């Protein structure tokens, strides 16, 4: 049978590239004089890229591929390192990149806090840093230049909106949490719960267990859940993989498609296909194709132009209405 998920990562598809959400003028900006560095020619510069996790899930694959493709297209020398989900390793990785002579850094942080040593090393050499996907808790335009990424709280809120719509704002929902201690988890949870509390007080969150962002774990937890809470109306999975695991569990338990509403975050092809098949009610996109925007920002910055400190991208959403049509946009 044809399986299209393995040839999905197509960073070249510009039409699905990221769009900045609010290029508003009120946003804080940063330029090279403010930052205290010197102009350089991006073309001849070395860019260091630190990836936080193995390129083994669709999100990370697409993210790294997008960065690499863009660097190649622009003819920029790219050094990369992968922290294999170990924060200590990511700190050393970035320091290694600096020691190896990176002039600019693009970091996909595993964690928001704990970047002191890296920021100190970078500051000593005035190396501009752009963080993608997750933010670093530090001072923009001083410790780093810009953050490019989604607003995870917002993602949670939008997922809540979808859940409210799917369930009609009544009943019981469960949350499949991401890995514990991870700020993506924290923020996607917070946004979701806040929105539910504000908009649909009759919708109750009755169950929150971690699925560790993995499909298998998502499936196992859901299997337990549907037995202890047979009346559950909706499941909010903080990433697609866990959501797909939940679908597996529901199938295994003999439930019908759509009997339990599932809302997930990310926008992988499999999940969007799930909407088409009727198992998933909605997917909030979290676009991983950071390459173009990241290099655009670095380019502008190194030329001395102003860049926004917070470049929040506009994430799309997949719903039963657009899923079929937008399937090609999914990663």
């Amino acid at each position, binding site marked *: *049978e044809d*399986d299209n*998920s*393995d040839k999905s990562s197509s960073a070249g598809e510009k039409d699905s590239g990221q769009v900045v959400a609010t290029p508003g003028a009120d946003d804080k900006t940063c330029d090279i004089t403010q930052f205290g560095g010197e102009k350089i020619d991006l073309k001849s510069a070395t860019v260091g890229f630190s990836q936080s996790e*193995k*390129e*083994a*899930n*669709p999100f990370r*694959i697409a993210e790294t591929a997008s960065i690499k493709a863009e660097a190649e297209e622009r003819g920029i020398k790219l050094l990369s390192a992968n922290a294999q989900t170990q924060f200590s390793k990511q700190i050393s990785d970035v320091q290694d990149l600096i020691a190896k002579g990176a002039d600019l850094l693009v970091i996909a942080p595993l964690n928001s806090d704990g970047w002191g040593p890296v920021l100190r090393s970078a500051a000593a050499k005035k190396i501009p840093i752009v963080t993608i996907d997750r933010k670093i808790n530090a001072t923009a335009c001083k410790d780093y230049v810009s953050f490019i990424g989604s607003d995870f709280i917002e993602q949670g809120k939008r997922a809540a909106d979808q859940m409210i719509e799917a369930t009609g704002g009544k009943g019981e929902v469960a949350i499949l949490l991401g890995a*514990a201690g991870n700020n993506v988890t924290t923020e996607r949870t917070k946004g979701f719960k806040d929105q539910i509390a504000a908009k649909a007080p009759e919708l109750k969150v*009755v*169950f*929150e*267990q*971690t699925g*560790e*962002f*993995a*499909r*298998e*774990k998502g*499936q*196992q*937890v859901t*299997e*337990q*859940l549907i*037995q*202890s809470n*047979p009346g559950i109306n909706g499941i909010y999975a903080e990433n697609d*993989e866990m959501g*797909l*695991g939940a679908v*597996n569990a529901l*199938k*295994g*338990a003999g439930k019908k498609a759509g009997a339990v509403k599932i809302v997930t975050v990310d926008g992988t092809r*499999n999940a969007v296909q799930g909407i088409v098949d009727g198992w998933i009610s909605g997917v909030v996109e979290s676009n991983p194709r950071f390459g173009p925007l990241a290099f655009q920002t670095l380019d502008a910055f190194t030329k001395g132009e102003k860049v926004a400190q917070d470049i929040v991208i506009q994430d799309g959403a997949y719903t039963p209405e657009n899923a079929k049509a937008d399937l090609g946009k999914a990663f």
Partner: protein
Amino acid sequence: MTELALKGAPVDRARLLRLLQDYGVYAGVAVLLLVNIALTPHFLSTENFRTQAVQVAPVLIVALGMALAIGSEGVDLSVGSVMALSTSLLSLYLGYGPWVALIVAMLGGAVIGLANGSLIAFIGVQPIVATLALMVAGRGIALVLLPQLKDVRDPGMSSLGSGDLFGIPYLVLIAAALALAVGFTVKRTTFGRQLLAIGDSRPAAQLAGLPVRRVLILVYVIAGVLAAIAGVLATARLQASDPTSLGTLMELSAITAVVVGGTPLSGGRIRIGGTVAGAVLIQLLTATLIKHDLPPSWTQIAQAVVIVLAVYAARERGKR
């Protein structure tokens, strides 16, 4: 009269302790079942038992191989990575039909086991490090072979994952059959006896002319193949090959199941029945914590406490 009392007392106490040691883990399972029946809504249903049995099957299969490794005074940390490798191989070769893929996946496990066993038996590397090296490299190889999660849409695989025979899921049947086979191997075969002797006193086994190297290599090959089978079953259940996360921390779950089941880590003794009960105990514990929706902090602490209690009940006594 006093003499009688004197005679009887210590022996009886010792026997009682030994009973507890031998059956402590079963008692633990019973307690957890009772607690759940009393406190967990909708616990007493065939569906629920089915879920628990299906979820525990892969862990149990890995634990069976682990029990052999531990019985030989070793340990196999690479099992989780072998599961990942087997799922990668399975996906890659599914095009040639499920049987071919299954055999290739098992061969993959056997090769890793052979590498483990050779490092341990021929070079004399300590099991924990030898298998640690293959744990790291194994998952790397799995990811090189299959760099990302891939859906498995094979009808054979999907019926393996969710089908059943007379109402008993295939997964459970396979796990039970393997448990019986391994139990039989330990109890009744020459290999089993030799394995225990090697685990108890390697120099003595060596001097008694036992084929120490062959036995050790076989142990790790079996552990590898069992882990590969578990990988295949997990894949069938998930309907996808996920070499990144499949089997992570499996080594710790398996070791816990084995040790909680009363097999000492010092080798020379293997309890397969206990291992089954140990795996079930851990599964029930996890299920209980999830069903009651406890926060992760609680879950971890509760697991720690139960593990210690279970091992305490099953601990080796009488040694001074």
